[in-house]
């Protein structure tokens, strides 16, 4: 804006005093003041909304936590309507972390692979088409993923579950007793499929920004395609991939309906990932909300506050990584 005001003053009539006078009057024109007020007000409104979210959730949570008899962080119980109310988030924290970790472990390598496929392996036309389709897939709502997961994916996982149980059942972590495949493991797979498009899209953008000269330099030294990727593309794109993964993680942590539709809710932690059990913050809120009393709703809001803080931290970190990268990368030079 400094440049525009400077030009503004330059193009005023030659008498400098009159120009200064006009500029001063321009700054206080009522239309300008109203418009500035409106737009600044909207900006402030955004801040107020964020503050209000934190404040109201905290307020309701404190109401619930002050009556809670169990340890909120470590208790395995969820009985906020009982007298005295006892509830804790240990099961939810476990379920959320485990399903997100499974999702990230599957989605990140595959997404990076697809992004590389689109930018460096596929024929240009095909790559463009695939990128377009994946862009569209990112817009498919989570409820549709949930419906697909519950009715199409779950029946198809029996084979995989049986195989895992046969060969890795002895570990205890992957044993399966033959029930429907509605466990944290399935949730992890579904979440991986859901966050695949967003991680792919962001990584693809970053890989596309790799300076052509870096790649050509590597090729000129006799590098194979894989060596070009390892030495020129991946180092350049690393922070971009990390922030893309964190955006995906943020989405996986807060995913509600798909998890609620796929997971069969047993409020307990099981050793085996293939057995029904556990739950996630968001899923627990959605599935327990209907029967909840006011106390129960406050308890759910308390767990929602934890989720809010976690996603805030994850997203904030992702944004900071992106912002730092913007300053130092050669891409916008």
């Amino acid at each position, binding site marked *: 804006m400094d440049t*525009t005001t400077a*030009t*503004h003053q330059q193009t005023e009539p030659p008498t400098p005093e009159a120009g200064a006078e006009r500029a001063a009057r321009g700054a206080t024109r009522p*239309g*300008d003041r109203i*418009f*500035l007020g409106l737009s*600044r007000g*909207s*900006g*402030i409104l*955004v*801040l107020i*909304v*964020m503050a209000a*979210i934190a404040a*109201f*959730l905290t307020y309701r949570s404190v109401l619930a936590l002050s009556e809670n008899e169990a340890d909120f962080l470590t208790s395995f119980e969820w009985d906020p309507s009982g007298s005295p109310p006892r509830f804790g988030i240990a099961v939810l924290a476990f379920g959320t972390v485990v399903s997100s970790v499974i999702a990230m472990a599957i989605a990140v390598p*595959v997404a*990076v*692979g*697809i992004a*590389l*496929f689109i930018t460096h*392996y596929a024929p240009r036309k095909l790559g463009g088409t695939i990128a377009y389709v994946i862009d*569209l*897939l990112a*817009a*498919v*709502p989570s*409820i*549709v*993923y949930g419906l*697909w997961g*519950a*009715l*199409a994916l779950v029946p198809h996982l029996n*084979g995989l579950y049986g*195989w895992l149980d046969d060969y890795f059942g002895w570990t205890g972590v992957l044993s399966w007793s033959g029930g429907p495949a509605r466990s944290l493991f399935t949730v992890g797979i579904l979440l991986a*499929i859901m966050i695949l498009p967003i991680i*792919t899209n962001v990584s693809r953008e970053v890989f596309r920004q790799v300076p052509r000269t870096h790649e050509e330099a590597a090729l000129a030294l006799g590098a*194979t*395609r*894989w*060596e070009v990727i390892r030495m020129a593309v991946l180092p350049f794109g690393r922070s971009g991939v990390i922030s893309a993964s964190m955006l995906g993680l*943020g989405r996986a942590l*807060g995913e*509600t*309906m798909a998890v609620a*539709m796929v997971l069969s809710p047993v409020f307990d932690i099981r050793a085996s990932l293939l057995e029904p059990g556990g739950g996630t913050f*968001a899923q627990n*809120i*959605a599935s327990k*909300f209907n029967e909840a009393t006011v106390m129960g709703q406050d308890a*759910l*809001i308390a767990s*929602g506050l934890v989720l809010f803080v976690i*996603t805030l931290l994850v997203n*904030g970190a992702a*944004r900071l990584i992106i912002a730092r990268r913007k300053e130092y990368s050669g891409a916008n030079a």
Partner: protein
Amino acid sequence: MSHASLTPRRSSLRGATLPKWFPWAVAAASVALGLAVSAAAGLQSSIQWALIAAVCFVGGNYGVSARVEGRRQAKDRVATSLVWVAFLLAVIPLASLIWETLKRGVKVLDGYFLSHSMGVVSDTEPGGGIYHALIGTLEQVGLATLFSVPVGVLTAIYLVEYGRGRLAKAVTFFVDVMTGIPSIVAGLFILSLWVLILDMGPSGIAGSFALSILMIPVVVRSTEEMLKLVPNELREASLALGVPKWRTILKVVLPTSLGGITTGVMLAIARITGETAPVLLLVWGTNFINTNPLSGPQASLPMYIYLQYANSGGEGAAYDRAWAAALTLIAFIMILNLAARAIARWKAPR
């Protein structure tokens, strides 16, 4: 250089390379081997023979290539096959999602389905439709758009045209953070404010408030990008003619970027149309037609899918309706997306 020319040996700049059909041959051979092993050992799982075939493929590729072309080329081949595997692995579920929705959705999707509600049809019987859900979705999304677009566009104008200093930095950061708020948390916030403190019942407008929280940051971000694309020369020319700044923004900056802003708004609408969690908490969903968004529970398309799934009792009729509604929802969102992209291309700065 001179040394190389002095030594009389069969030298070439290129090492030995395998022919182009080599990976395909290895792939065919390993699939055959995988099938043969599974037939011999009597394995039924398709994962098992696929896994055997995959291991054979990567191992065979690497072994032969390392012997003929050298280790570096072999590694390159392994990386290539892994990238292809990643791509194929992702295509399967995503293609299945689209295919299943299409196949199961077209069964009951017709004019009757679009123009009737579930008022007199119990969840386990065939019949009924999504009319009430369409009305609910259109009203809730319309209201949310009405709330979010002015706030979002004005915030973006503030950030691009006025914003310097700490307030603008804070707004930028929190808009970014707001993008990542889970929809259920937005729903809980409105719940704690609207229902628990102001003591209002479920209504469409409460859902719209929550949807606005999700929509505002998307609108701000896309509008900001579009406003930044407007060349400074246009602003300077207008200001040089003595036009006040607010009129410059309204008459020069906004019209120039209108196409981009429209695209952004449409993409934002597409994003919130599929949101279920806030609707579940605040609007509840119903089987009856409720055209008044200000009071009483209302249906919405995503909520309808969830209710049909949850209350189906395992009945095929309810699942059919859920798939048909899912197909309608996807079609709606895809059309919005495609239209938005078409506008972006049509209005692109030339």
